[in-house]
């Protein structure tokens, strides 16, 4: 088994004739928490989606947990079932209870019996302090609660890698906090995470590595604390100032 849960090499992707990723290479070690930052339009979200081929890469190679995602014969459903994807807009299924949101994929994808799926889902909801919402519907919850449920849904699949696409940026500042707390908790448990976020607190305190993406390429990569406090390039500095200003004003 490779110590690296994810390897991305020379990834290129885009939409129509618009190039978004111009050759991105990165890797995530098992248990590592990696934060990706970058200005809007830099391709962060596209990068995450390419990893499980929710967006088709144009070129490059992606290996996840020893399996080649980019091969033509890749079993995408199995690959997606072993990663967890958390969307900016939560994307819970509104017509199902919170509990059903978690048990449905366990039953139809992981083929767990109903009872076992429920036991597992409830255990997870309890762990994240969400059990009181088990029988509520997503739209009856606040944005922060919905996002925590979405994180629980992703975790229920026992993912080898958790992919999070700006999990706090659709939320009001006071709601971001509860989601961040959940993320800290998961990070403590040693789960491999690749997370696109502008939360400097999280990057500093919980991430092992910070990757800066701009205009479809990685411009800097390293220890989060070092990068935030002693940015090496002018570009990094400018970018960090920009997001800091934003998080102060927010």
């Amino acid at each position: 088994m490779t110590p690296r849960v994810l390897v991305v090499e020379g990834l290129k992707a885009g939409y129509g004739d618009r190039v978004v990723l111009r050759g991105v290479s990165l890797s995530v070690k098992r248990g590592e928490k990696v934060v990706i930052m970058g200005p809007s339009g830099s391709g962060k979200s596209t990068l995450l989606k390419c990893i499980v081929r929710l967006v088709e890469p144009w070129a490059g190679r992606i290996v996840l947990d020893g399996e080649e995602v980019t091969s033509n014969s890749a079993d995408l459903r199995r690959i997606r079932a072993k990663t967890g994807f958390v969307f900016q807009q939560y994307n819970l299924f509104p017509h199902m209870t919170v509990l059903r949101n978690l048990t449905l994929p366990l039953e139809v994808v992981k083929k767990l019996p109903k009872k076992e799926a429920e036991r597992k889902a409830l255990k997870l909801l309890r762990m994240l302090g969400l059990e009181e919402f088990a029988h509520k519907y997503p739209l009856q919850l606040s944005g922060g609660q919905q996002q925590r449920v979405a994180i629980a849904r992703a975790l229920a699949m026992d993912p080898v890698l958790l992919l999070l696409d700006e999990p706090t940026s659709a939320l009001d500042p006071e709601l971001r906090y509860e989601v961040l707390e959940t993320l800290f908790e998961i990070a403590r448990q040693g789960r491999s995470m690749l997370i696109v976020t502008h939360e400097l607190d999280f990057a500093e305190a919980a991430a092992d590595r910070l990757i800066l993406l701009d205009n479809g390429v990685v411009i800097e990569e390293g220890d989060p604390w070092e990068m935030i406090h002693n940015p090496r390039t002018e570009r990094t500095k400018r970018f960090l100032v920009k997001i800091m200003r934003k998080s102060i004003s927010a």
Partner: protein
Amino acid sequence: MEWAFFIISIIPDLIKGLLTTLEISVTSFIMGLALAVMLAPARIFAPRPISLIARGYIELLRGTPLLVQLLLIYFGLPSVGIKLDAYTACILAIGLNSAAYQAEILRGAMKSIPETQFLAAESLGMSTAQAYRYVVLPQALRVAIPALVNEFVTLIKESSLASVIGVVELTRRGEYLVAYTFRALEVYVAVALIYFVVCALASQATRILEKKLMIPGYERGVT
């Protein structure tokens, strides 16, 4: 006042016809819905040959009169060895016809479900079929309720075509009554009234169904 008594006196007879009308309408509506649930995704997700067949079916059935379809099934099919009784033939004709309309209603409703719902299902490892069945379809059906009820009301009225091939439903009962009472005005007014009441009740059901099936929390707005 005599006419009022006359109308009241023929009501029991017409109600018998109404029951057949309702049988035909409900059965063919359900048949249409069952087919539509397969036709709509076939148009959207299926590989080209299948989606073309689904599209062709829908265009063909929407582009020809129901009466012609009914006559074709009842009088035309026996020449290729398929002989159906009038009752079965009209359920089949109306059901196949309604399937095309319901498929289009459903397709429209599916388009209103955000793409991200599909993306979320896929991200969890669901197949396209599973995403459709568990995530997209249940939401699309809710969106489609008003249009589907409207289609059902249309279908109740169209089922009067069955009288042409001799099915004794509401309209045909009326024709019989006219034949031996010669009171066309009163009889057809009564027939029309019954259709009207039934359709009005069906339309009312929309609101009840919508309320009952509404996604909890939906009234607060969708994200």
